[in-house]
């Protein structure tokens, strides 16, 4: 879908909304960080190929 987001919402300002959103938000933030962390390890072998 086309985004007409004329405003730069700010990456940090989007993420912080998960962290401040209470317990459910913390779960989302934890998942986000976990995926970012694991994706780093996942990518490494493909780089060496």
């Amino acid at each position, binding site marked *: 879908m086309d985004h007409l987001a004329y405003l730069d919402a700010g990456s940090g300002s989007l993420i912080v909304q998960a962290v401040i*959103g209470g317990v459910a938000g913390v779960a989302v933030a934890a998942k986000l960080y976990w995926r970012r962390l694991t994706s780093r390890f996942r990518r490494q072998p493909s780089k060496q190929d």
Partner: protein
Amino acid sequence: MVAPPPPVPTTPTTEPESVPRADPGSFRDPANRVLHVGGQVFRGLGQQAAEDWRALAGAEFFDRLRADGKICGTETVDPETLPASLAGQWATVLRHERIPFVSYPYEWSFAMLRDAALLHLEILRTAVPAGFTTKDGSAYNLQWRGAEPCFIDIGSFEPARDGEPWAGYRQFCQTLLYPLLLQAHLGLDFQPWLRSRIDGIEAGELRKLFGGTRRFRAGVLKHVHLHDAIQSRYAAASTGTVRAELKDAGFSRELVLATLRGLEKLVGRLDWQPPASHWSGYRETCTYSAADREVKERFVAEALAEPNRSRLVLDLGANDGTYSRLAAGYADYVVAVESDPAVVDQLYRRLRADGERRVLPLVMDLADPSPGGGWRGVERGSFATRAEADAVLALAVVHHLAIGRNVPLPEVVDWLVGLLAADSGGRLVVEFVHPDDPMAARLLANKPAGLFPDYHREEFERLLGQRCEIVRRLELPSGTRTLYLGTPRG
């Protein structure tokens, strides 16, 4: 992909109202544009914005907010309504209710900014469950009908996409939440910050002011410190990637609502009262005998009662708003300008409690009125370009400018007369405080003797007489103040 509509030529705000023009402050979202034609306000919508509007216009929540006056009056009109110079580029054209006097957040008091913030949050909290969001979160999305805030940026609504946070959160923080934190927690006036920065206060700047135990004040740790830390950490990440990652991680509409509820609770709790010493010092500067007050009120009422009703009255140095309220009986709208933010705040709270929709209180130093701001200095209009009044009240204000601020007396008179709209048959009601009046004497005592040899009644009367026909003059019972009613000479 929808191509944005072609750009519209803008003309400076000093053009007469009859010249159709695009609003110089509405270019940021290319999907739509505010247009002024003959005193009416239109909004041109591009293809995507027109689709969003059709969805919005059919939404129950939008109708309810509009009926409650929380969103400015808006209707679809025939695009042919626009003159040829502006027509042809918009899929849909809307007509908006006209806001009687456009003002900016740096002219509002603390409680005004807080009520504006609460309205923005309420509108979004109502829109989100209905499947809508706002693209931004700016304080400039709001305007006033007297002491009642109203959301004006209809172009900001768009259908919400599941799994996405609020795009306007950062802007909300910068233009609404941070200025409120600054004043509520540190007692600093926020107006100069907003006036000098069109995009508001950055998290990183505010963080420096909230070190030590101050970081534990309400809202600071999360919305300032954490926000800034995460912003710095993800400075290089694109918002597109982050949006996708958040969606994958399970970000939901419920989380948007939780953020909004948290913000509403926080903003509702923020308050500011000036120190008690402020008021004790203040009272000493406004001494009037009951007899003076009564005569003055009658003079002002009679001056405004004839010959016809004023559209816009400016009350300069409005103080507690006594004369603004009086003027509202004879005018469609009154703008009460006062330099003391605490006085304006108290006036606003009273007007709001009374449901007053004809008096707009504003914070502004008359010796330093709001300049033009933003892109090319016209994105936000200067006070001078907005203030085209039918009547000007300048009660107990000339001595503050002429003695307190050293403004030459002829310039003070020129400025007052210049605030009246051309050929409106305008009226100037001005009070001259004689040099021997206790208030003028106190100001003079702070300046070297003999600095203002021309500050006397005869000279003021001569200057006023050059520029105005003096319709009436009246010395107050105290014998140290004179009131004048003048009408500008052709």
